[in-house]
């Protein structure tokens, strides 16, 4: 999983590229947490446009980022979510607590 971070006007955008499964999850989780700690953004956006596959390991990554942003008094967004990851997010009931961007499919 390749991650690209852009920090602009208190918004941290994480462009994610690859497949989010158990193999890639813990490193992804750690890298995102580190950047949130460094920048303390007001909004964190996980951009899923290039996430071609996600399973429940991705749910744990999103929840971890959500908790970190809540602790810092900020908000978490998940944007540009493709059909397959969105189905996993919905099945886990995560759509009720996480802000899903309007660009989701």
């Amino acid at each position: 999983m390749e991650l690209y971070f852009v920090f602009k006007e208190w918004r941290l955008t994480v462009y994610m590229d690859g497949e989010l499964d158990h193999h890639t999850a813990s490193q992804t989780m750690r890298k995102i947490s580190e950047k949130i700690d460094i920048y303390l953004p007001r909004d964190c956006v996980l951009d899923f446009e290039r996430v071609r596959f996600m399973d429940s390991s991705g749910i744990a990554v999103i929840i971890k980022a959500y908790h970190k942003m809540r602790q810092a008094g900020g908000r978490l967004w998940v944007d540009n979510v493709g059909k397959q990851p969105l189905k996993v997010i919905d099945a886990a009931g995560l759509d009720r607590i996480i802000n899903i961007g309007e660009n989701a499919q």
Partner: protein
Amino acid sequence: MKAVNYMKLEIPSRSANEAFARGAAACFVSQLDPTIDELGDIKTAVSEAVTNCIVHAYPDAIGKIYISGKIFEDGTVEISVRDKGCGIEDIHKAMEPLYTSGGEERAGMGFTIMESFMDKVKVRSALGRGTTVVLRRKIVSRNIQNERL
């Protein structure tokens, strides 16, 4: 019902094999001409089952994971994921949403997702002997779906 095709696969429980396992299952199912969504569902469920073997069945060692697939005459696919690991003490509890023994890296949603993406999920387990998860899904070929439109 008679199986019209089958496959068998054995892999060590390394996390790098998760992508291979779900990809192989998807390739096997492709001969039924599934939709992208159906393939995505099968990949997701297989990924969950294989991850369970890696995280829970063999927590401290590399063990063997046996994956087999069958295709039946009516277009039903059956994928079974078997390990010879530690086994599940309480299957009902393990299948509850949000329950996990895997710590904060795990969401506890594996079985919930398998059940919502497949038509049928069967789990057999014996402590100290291993676990078998059988996933079933009927594939409605794209040609048939197009005719219905």
